[in-house]
């Protein structure tokens, strides 16, 4: 894969945890941003990114190449990761 998948998550959201667990279990290396734990300035920047990508503030968001997946969705993850 060209670039590592990126996950935008909230530290308290169990669906975000499930998405990360799914990636871990499939030995997928990814970058993660826990949006709620960022400081204010950084958080504003990241939220803007997320809103631009998805038109909302819903988590988790997974970026896999050109694919953007909002919410924990194992079928979509499998398809995008060709698992």
């Amino acid at each position, binding site marked *: 894969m060209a670039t590592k998948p990126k996950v935008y998550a*909230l*530290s*308290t*959201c*169990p*669906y975000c*945890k499930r998405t990360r667990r799914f990636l871990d279990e499939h030995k997928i290396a990814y970058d993660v941003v826990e*949006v*709620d*734990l960022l400081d204010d300035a950084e958080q504003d920047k990241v*939220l803007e990114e997320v809103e631009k990508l998805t038109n909302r*503030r*819903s*988590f988790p968001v997974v970026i896999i190449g050109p694919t953007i997946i909002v919410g924990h969705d194992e079928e979509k993850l499998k398809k995008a990761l060709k698992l």
Partner: protein
Amino acid sequence: MTVHEVTRVYCPVCQAKFRFSEGWKAGDIVVCPVCGQKLRLEMQGNEWVGARPEKGQEKEIRERVDEYARIKGYVFNDMKEELLEGLLGKNRRFGDFYCPCRMEHVPEFMCPCRPTRSGDVERDGKCYCGLFWKKK
């Protein structure tokens, strides 16, 4: 103003003022009929307010969500424990039991959040976080 003229109790969780029932007195433990929070009746100035006897404790949020589900006839699914873990995380990091799947930590998003109390579950079949579900 005397006590018998005051007819409402302020709930610090959902910010509703619910009816004061006849016979209640200071120190009584009552349940907010709007959000399910357990409250100890106190007089503050001229107003009855509910205090949260177990504020911030796991017991408080467990009892609140169970009571709210009971009042509304909602049910839980197998995400319940993980969502409660998230609510406890919100309380640890952000000071109260806010929606675990939302970014914002504002009073209207204290669980059960205002959108939930305004009919999200009736409309969508579940609340934003998927804690409360409409019975099928």
